[in-house]
């Protein structure tokens, strides 16, 4: 599903290149649950951003579902966002002015899904996440864990093939964090959704089936979790 070949990312400042990523080559298959780990500043988030096409690599090849991302036009990238990629953020990033239901509806609007189907999909997902009673609340009326559930529901509602999660439990207490990680695992196993998460926690990494460890911009380890 994802092919990275020799990805480099550096910032040139007064002739001095400061590298964030070097020679990153890897591939991720459909249905994998990959955790990216490493110390602060190692380049984990940059790698995730490049995978999410939010940042461009300075050098290297990136194929997403067989297509060359670097040669992609803005329009095609937006189509990928609409149909294949769901983002989950550490700080949830719900839109404060929208209710829970509206936040979940937003990606469907951009996907131009007809009203009736939108309604049923939102109802489904609210039901699944046990949040029907909260659908008319605003984000600031929810706890952090609940907000992150909405964030995941929003990512899921467009039925993506991959979810990119940047420290999804970083702001949560451990009980809530476990709940979220269980949910990811379930989605991965039952719906075969590819999941890529950046995490600091060894424990969270164990939920997945593969761990990539990055240090100083280089992949140090690539292990499969039993």
């Amino acid at each position, binding site marked *: 599903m994802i092919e990275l070949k020799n990805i480099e990312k550096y910032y040139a400042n007064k002739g001095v290149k400061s590298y964030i990523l070097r020679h990153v080559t890897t591939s991720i298959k459909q249905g994998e649950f990959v955790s990216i780990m490493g110390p602060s500043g190692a380049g984990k988030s940059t790698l995730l951003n490049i995978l*999410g096409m939010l940042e461009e690599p300075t050098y290297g090849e990136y194929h997403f579902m067989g297509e060359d991302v670097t040669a992609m036009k803005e329009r095609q990238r937006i189509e990928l*966002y609409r149909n294949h*990629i769901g*983002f989950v953020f550490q*700080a949830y990033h719900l*839109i*404060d*002015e929208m209710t829970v239901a*509206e936040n979940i509806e937003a990606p469907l609007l*951009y996907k131009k899904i007809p009203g009736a189907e939108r309604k049923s999909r939102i109802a489904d997902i609210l039901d699944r996440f046990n949040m029907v009673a909260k659908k008319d609340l605003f984000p600031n009326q929810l706890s952090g864990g609940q907000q992150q559930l909405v964030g995941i529901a929003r990512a899921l509602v467009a039925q993506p093939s991959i979810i990119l999660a940047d420290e999804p439990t970083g702001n949560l207490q451990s009980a809530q964090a476990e709940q979220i990680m269980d949910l990811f695992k379930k989605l991965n196993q039952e719906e075969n959704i590819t999941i890529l998460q950046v995490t600091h926690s060894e424990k969270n990494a164990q939920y997945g089936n593969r761990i990539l460890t990055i240090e100083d911009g280089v992949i140090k380890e690539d292990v499969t979790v039993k």
Partner: protein
Amino acid sequence: MFKLNLKIALRNLFKNKVYAAINIGGLAVGLTSCLLLMLYATYEWGYDKQFKNSNHIYQAMINLQDKNGNVIRTIEQSQNVMLDALKQEFPDVSYGARSTSSYKRLVANDEQSLKLQSRYVDPDFLKVFDYEFISGNPAKALNDPNSIVLTATAAKKIFGKTDVLNEKIRFENQVDLKVTAVIKDLPSNTTFGFESLTTWTLYENLNEWPKQPSWGSHDYHTLVKLDEKADVASFNLKLKGFVRKHFANANEDVFLYPLTKLHLYGAFVNGQSTGGNINQMRLFVGLAIGILLIACINFMNLATASTQGRAKEIGVKKTMGATRTNLVSQFMLESFILTLLSILLSIIILEFTLPLFNQLLGIEIVFDYLNPINWTLILVVLILTGFVAGSYPAFYLSGFNVIQSLKKSLNFKKGYALTFRQVLVVVQFSFSIILIAATITIYKQIQFVKNTPLGYDTNGLVEIPHEGLLYSKFNVLKTKLLSSRAVISMTQSSGSISNKNSTIRALGWDGMNESDKLIDFDQIYTTYDFIKTANIKLIAGRDFNEKFASDSAALLLSKKAVEVMDLKNPVGASILYQGAKRNIVGVFEDIVWDNPSKNTAPMVIAFADISDVITMRLNPEKSLSESVGLVTSIIKEVNPNFPVEINFIDNLNESKLKNERVLGTLANLFGCLAIFVSCLGLFGLSSFSTAQRIKEVSIRKILGASVGELMTLLSASFVKLIFIAIVIALPIAYYVMNNWLQTFELRTALSWWLFVLTALLILVISVITISWQTYRAAKTNPVDALKYE
């Protein structure tokens, strides 16, 4: 999607109430000013265009020329024989009508006696202008010489109703007229306005002078309707030499000028139209757009300054697959919602301010809610404003990089380079500064003109029209008034001392050149006591005096006239005046007769019993109301058929400055509004900016910065902008106002203090505005700001 965006936009408005209030309030003020000025411009633009034939109606105008054929002056009045001559020789002239100027004429029935603005016109006047008739037949209304046409208001004034066909009216206390038609009131934006129309034949029956066919005197308006197919430019070529063909002595050419251009393009130099009221109109439209732009700039500035709050939303939406177009249309929608709310508010404000605005300018604009043109105007303003205000924020915000916007690490350019937002603030304030400087200059010019010595004493000086029995009983009136001790002196004259109404040329004196014949002298006819009543200073000789029989053929000259004639011993000298020799008995100090901003012309005062005005000086020892009461009752007693109409010379002089005063009022009003709206924007902007820097402020505070130091720090960036605006605006203001002053012959100087004052004023106002926010920021408890990090 649209529905959701709409909901979000409204929620945003409710959430940020201050921001919304500043935006909507500012825009509403801007839009109201814009609508007011636009309505005013439409009003001016619509002058004389209400008639079916408007585009084919022309006024015959005259270019007066010197010996070499150069045009000296262009006048609107032509000869009483002009119309017939034109009609006879040019088949393109379909029909036409003469009209006198509009004068107040006495009308009366059994109960009422009052004066109406009135014109004597040819019957075809009603064909030239298709007025709306309430009753009567336009084709026949003026056929009978003793008929009168009234406007609805005039009819109500006299009879209390409009259903007055065939009623009798006593006209000028001389003749009974029959009402043959009542028409709807004329719109006030017509050049040829009136309250009643009477026939030309009546004019000739009541007076001697109009009867004589004359190519020599220009007294009347001649209006013609040209054939629809006729081309006026080529028609005017045919008119070259037309007057001379009929009158060999003539040094003039007649030409046709479109009625619809008369009001806006009525100023002529060298026989060519050089504009007129259109200049003022352009100024107003510029002002309207300027103020609206200031309000739009507020919107743009506040919208982009509030990015911190919106950045996350933009980033998230982009990761969900929102295109830039999606985001642009969302922000545009928000801009249009705000504009729509502002426009609704501004229509409400308009409803309240329009009467005041009308009163201020002495005009009658109504906002007609049923008129589609008004709504089109509003729609155009709505779309333009929404688009202009929304475009920059929409493109600016939608262009955010996702990662930066999610990390809240949007960096704004630092250093000395100006961001677009700062440029906008500079533009706003430059405009306001120019307006303030203009206001002060206009005010100074008005004061300058007002303070110019008139050369006579206006204190207690009043005038009444010389009319009716006051002619035959002038001496009775004089004796009665003087013996009542209400007045201490009175005189009669051919014109008011406050308004120039007559000139004469071709005077003859010893040692004159041929070209001196073309010098225009101001001219007043009077009998006795003119100098004494007006309290004009005599430099040499004496006033006309009843003791000297020869004074009935004497002259007085102004100081300027003596200079022009270069007379060594003026008193006793003899001058050729209207073909006869007259002796000069006195020389008086120059007086201001014309517009006080013009150079004084030389003046002659000639003894002649031709009079339109009685001027008197009230007794300063009596109270004003007592004197006026006495004078009124005595005049009423002597001349019972006319209403008494006492005018104070002070008021008459005041009205000469009307144009400047209107300009001053408008500049003042809209200047204040512009500054108000600019400051609203500055207020909003400084609140965002200080909010952004609150962490920095808190840290500095912990490090020991005082409130004063922090306020200086926070204000500095804005004060810098105001300084730049001052530097840019003052030279422009100087240039513009210098040009404006050039239109006056006598003008005040543009002094440096005026500009320093403007700069200081703007600085003080803006520093106060900013301080509101910076003070609050500097006083915050550092813990509050830092605990969230």
